[in-house]
């Protein structure tokens, strides 16, 4: 039997939630970024699922582009982490509070 | 734009309003150190402005009717923000004419009075004063509520700077207090203006207008009228100021330099009462009628409370400041009474207060320039060393105290007589303020001029210089002229006031409609207006 699309969607929702929780709770910047990747994947999954549901390509195309975006984001983000680490020797976001609030 | 420039070149209100600001530009090219040049330049500019003012008024007064009425004169309306029905629209009638003239007249006097007191940044000071004049004149002459609001706010910044830059110890506190108080009221008024404009649009088939004459035609239901009236009244009452919204005034006056105080007391406060007369009452007649008891109570509190607090002051300037609260209480009472005589008196009293309190502030400033103190404890017996100062102080004080044959009396008498006719006993209560005025003003004279000259620092004080006399003399002459022959000053504004009053009364007595409606145009708007002829200007 074929799996109902809503199951995929539910899975994606749960994955998204897990990612969000991770992004909100980790202290290590890169871990946060990893969690965000989980969220992106969750979104991708639901896009693919919807594409399947409608039987057309749009969802897949979006996923395709998101892959590229994720790559670009990762490049810039990781470069940033390197830059920050160079100055501060840490990527713990809890310690990134030089600024007056 | 080109039409605007063409207007500014002629004998028009536009020239009157914008000349001072335009005259700021050359200030940029004067050297920073050339203080004397700046002072003289500013004085010349202000005198030219006086000439412009007189030229305008006299040229139109020549057309006044047999009743001596100053005609409604206006510049051609120029579309400003046409898509919102906003027009650049300046007009002068008998109500705004005296106040505008007062404003213009006070400008050179303020410059003369600040000659010594202002020690730094003269260019900026001149610019502030000139821009302030534009703002005040614009507010007085605007015939479009949007334009009015713009000018109204334009006044704030220069005054804020004048207090804050050239003021005394606590100048920043005072400047901010002044700004925030005024702004608090005017922002709500802005909402009111917008609401009004929108309502007009709703009943006018989707066409915007903020023109005063158009908005006057709006009949609003009581519900919205009350709120709108509250918004407008708040803005104006803060400016007046009326208890309990008055606390900015003593601070602002005490801290402001002489010129600032003169302008503040002489003109800025009047805009509160002027606005009340011009906008708050006629636009919302039923609502204002419904709040007469409250407003009367506030006016009375202002009169009595201002006088009493003034009495116990130990600072010369603060005493005069509080006296303004009392004096403007009279004006408010006159306005609220909605009686022609009271209105005439109120309008006259606005001018009077500008003259006499302006003179008093100038005198305080002259003393401060010499002694760098304003405490009564530091003075006493000054009449001995400064007879001219004593003369002018006594003269202005008496005018302020409402001594007959001087201006204060004419205004107060008309206000109170009219108010008594319209309101009854509250006017009698207010009349008691006359007694209190004598109490605090004579105390003021007592502590400065009379008694033995006890302090050694005061022995060497020089009497007023020719420049200072020149600043004071026109004020005192006007005080005398108004007191002796008020009719000369009343006649030009009487028809304007009486038609405004007639409209107000007629509407105030009718019940408010259930929904907003537009009254039909009685006559073409331009019919009774005499426009400045201007070749090629689009109408």
């Amino acid at each position, binding site marked *: 039997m074929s799996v109902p699309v809503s199951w995929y969607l539910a899975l994606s929702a749960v994955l998204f939630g897990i990612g969000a929780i991770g992004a909100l709770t980790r202290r290590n910047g890169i871990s946060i970024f990893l969690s965000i990747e989980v969220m992106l994947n969750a979104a991708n999954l639901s896009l693919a699922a919807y594409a399947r549901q409608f039987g057309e390509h749009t969802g897949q195309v979006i996923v395709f582009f998101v892959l590229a975006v994720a790559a670009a984001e990762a490049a810039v983000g990781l470069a940033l982490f390197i830059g920050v680490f160079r100055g501060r020797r840490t990527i713990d*976001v809890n310690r990134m509070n030089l600024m007056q609030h | 734009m080109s039409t605007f420039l063409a207007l500014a070149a002629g004998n028009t209100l536009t020239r009157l309003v914008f000349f001072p600001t335009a005259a700021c530009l050359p200030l940029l090219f004067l050297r920073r150190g050339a203080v004397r040049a700046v002072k003289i330049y500013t004085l010349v500019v202000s005198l030219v402005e006086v000439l412009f003012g007189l030229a305008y008024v006299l040229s139109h007064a020549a057309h006044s009717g047999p009743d001596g009425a100053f005609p409604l004169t206006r510049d051609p309306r120029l579309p400003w923000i046409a898509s919102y029905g906003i027009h650049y629209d300046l007009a002068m009638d008998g109500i705004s004419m005296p106040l505008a003239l007062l404003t213009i007249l006070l400008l050179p006097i303020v410059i003369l009075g600040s000659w010594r007191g202002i020690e730094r940044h003269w260019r900026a000071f001149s610019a502030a004063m000139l821009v302030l004049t534009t703002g005040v004149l614009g507010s007085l002459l605007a015939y479009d509520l949007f334009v009015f609001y713009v000018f109204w706010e334009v006044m704030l910044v220069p005054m804020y700077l004048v207090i804050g830059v050239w003021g005394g110890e606590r100048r920043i506190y005072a400047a901010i207090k002044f700004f925030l108080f005024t702004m608090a009221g005017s922002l709500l008024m802005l909402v009111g203006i917008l609401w009004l404009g929108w309502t007009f649009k709703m009943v006018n088939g989707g066409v915007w207008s903020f023109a005063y004459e158009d908005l006057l035609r709006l009949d609003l239901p009581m519900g919205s009228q009350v709120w709108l009236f509250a918004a407008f009244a708040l803005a104006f009452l803060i400016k007046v100021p009326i208890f309990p919204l008055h606390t900015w005034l003593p601070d602002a006056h005490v801290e402001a330099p002489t010129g600032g105080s003169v302008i503040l007391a002489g003109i800025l406060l009047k805009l509160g009462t002027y606005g009340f007369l011009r906008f708050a009452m006629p636009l919302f007649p039923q609502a204002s009628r419904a709040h007469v008891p409250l407003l009367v109570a506030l006016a009375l509190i202002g009169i009595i409370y201002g006088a009493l607090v003034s009495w116990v002051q130990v600072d010369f300037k603060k005493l005069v400041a509080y006296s303004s609260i009392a004096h403007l209480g009279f004006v408010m009472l006159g306005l609220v009474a909605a009686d022609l005589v009271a209105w005439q008196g109120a309008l006259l009293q606005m001018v009077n207060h500008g003259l006499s309190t302006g003179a008093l502030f100038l005198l305080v400033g002259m003393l401060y320039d010499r002694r760098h103190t304003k405490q009564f404890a530091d003075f006493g017996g000054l009449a001995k060393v400064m007879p001219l100062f004593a003369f002018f102080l006594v003269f202005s004080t008496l005018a302020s105290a409402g001594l007959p044959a001087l201006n204060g009396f004419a205004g107060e008498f008309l206000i109170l007589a009219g108010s008594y006719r319209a309101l009854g006993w509250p006017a009698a209560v207010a009349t008691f303020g006359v007694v209190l005025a004598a109490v605090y003003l004579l105390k003021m004279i007592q502590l400065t001029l009379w008694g033995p000259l006890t302090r050694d620092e005061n022995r060497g004080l020089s009497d007023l210089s020719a420049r200072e006399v020149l600043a004071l003399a026109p004020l005192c002459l006007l005080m005398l002229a108004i007191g002796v*022959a008020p009719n000369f000053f009343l006649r030009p504004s009487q028809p304007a006031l009486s038609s405004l009053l007639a409209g107000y009364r007629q509407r105030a007595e009718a019940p408010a409609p259930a929904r907003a409606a537009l009254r039909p145009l009685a006559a073409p708007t331009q019919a009774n207006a005499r426009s400045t002829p201007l070749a090629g200007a689009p109408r």
Partner: protein
Amino acid sequence: MHALDWLWLIPALPFAGAVLNGVVFGWGGRRAPRPLVNAVALGAPLASLAVALACIWQYAQGAWPQPVERVAYAWTTGDLAIDVAFLIDPLAAVMLFVVTFVGFIIHLYSVGYMAHEEGYQRYFAYLNLFMAAMLTLVLGNNYLVMFVGWEGVGLCSYLLIGYYYDQELAPYAGKKAFIVNRVGDFAFLVGMFALVARFGTLDYTRILPRIAAHPGLVTGEYWAGLSFAGFVGLCFFIGAAGKSAQIPLYVWLPDAMAGPTPVSALIHAATMVTAGVYMAVRSNAIYQLAPGISLLVAVVGAATAIFAATIGLAQNDIKKVLAYSTVSQLGYMFLAVGVGAYTAAIFHLTTHAFFKALLFLASGSVIHALGGEQDMSKMGGLRKHLPITYRTFVIGALALAGIPPLAGFFSKDAILAASAAAGHWVLWAVGLLTAGLTAFYMFRAVCLTFHGELRADPEHPAHPAPGEPAPALHLHESPPVMTVPLVILAAGAVAAGWFGIPKVLAFGADLDRFDRFLAPVVARIRGANPLEHDVGAAADLFLIALSVAVAAAGIALAVRAYGGERGPARDRVLAERFPALYGLVANKYYVDEIYDRLIVRPLAWLSRVFWKVVDTFIVDGSINAGAYATELTGDIGRLSTTGNVRNYALYFFLGVILLFWWLVR
């Protein structure tokens, strides 16, 4: 050319004099040459007197008894039209004469009295200004013009009381006078407003005849049980009480003696203080229609008369005695107004102007001679040194005491007779008693001042000007420029009464020219009987005799008590014997102190509360608290920006959830 067209010149001339001397010549304290100053200072009132006499003459010859009005210009037009206009009628004519005549005399006297003063020029400027204001008051054809003069004289009074402005107390006395007067003015103004509200005008000729013709206009209840006439009458009376120093507003007048003595003579005896009486008489139509208020006026007048007289008994300052006497005599005049004897009031006003001015000027001569000494306990025996002064002073005292045939006798008697005739026997009795007291304290003063031995220390005058060497005492008669006025006034004090000799004493002949001349001023109220004050010739004669007897008794008692060297000792004895009573009287019943405790101090306290508590603490405090609370909210709120990006993400996340809930709820 009709002299009445020049009516406006009468106040304008002295005004011009004031401007010339005060502003033009005296700019910034400069001094013009003395002859020039004198020419202006005396010329203006003299010219004014001349015009006034011409006008009176012409009026008496021609227009009498109709009032004549001359409009100068419109003060306001339209809804409330008020003209600056002048009016001459019998009442104005009498006042005009008194003011210009006595005024000029006193100007003349001042030339001598003030000769050595530094502020000579300023003095005359003020004095001329006073003349202008007083004449405006008298000549105005409406209440507003009257009020202009009314306040103008108040101002001059303020300036002249505080003439010695560099002293400690004189300016305070001036201020007190002005403020107390203002309390009265407040009521006067309210009365005017009431008239404006009802009649739309303030012209005498458009209000008073109308009231008289239609009493119904003003008799209905208006306010708190008062009719309109009652209300206006009450207001005007309070105003008059302020100006004319009646209970409870008399307190300023004794203090006003801080001014130069000629000022006291002119302003605080002869003219200004009588303005209240003038105003009340001018408004007699109103008072006739307000019997209750009239009674009040009479009672207050009588009370003031006796009250001030008792205080006068124990004063040691010669000018204070005269001041209380003035208060007392003004009380008489109001008594007359209250009982409806309007012409009698004006009659007494006129005679009083002569003899009281005389008394003041004579006392001024004394003070002048003693180098500023006013304390009678330091005088004595001066009759040898100052013969003319002495004689004129005694004439004035006799006139005041009401000894026939001097002026005071006729006028005072007219009042007493009128009170008796009106049936107010209590008031009459009070008046009579006052007459006795008056005679007593006047002759106490005569004795203390002129009889006995000189008690002053010739080397050390009591009141040297501060910072200046004490002037030597020059005990000699004043120069002619001072004594001639005394003599002229003395003649007036003797003869002024002869214009109003009552029928009983004229053996039925109508010699009461004064009453005849003034009679048109008293309004004839429609439907009311004309006032008739006649108790019958016999009773009249008896009453006259009684009053003369009482006066004579007063004099006798005074001479007995204070004659010779007993004077000052007598006061000490009295003080020891009746300490409470003497203290009470000598301290003027502590009225000033009561006012201070009851009104001034609570009001000052209240004002401070307003300032410090209401203004600073409550109003400003709540606004500042609001600002502070706003700032505090911001300060607390900014803690939300922790700097930790995870918190920021959480805000975002929670925001999303919140908005979603809002959207689908």
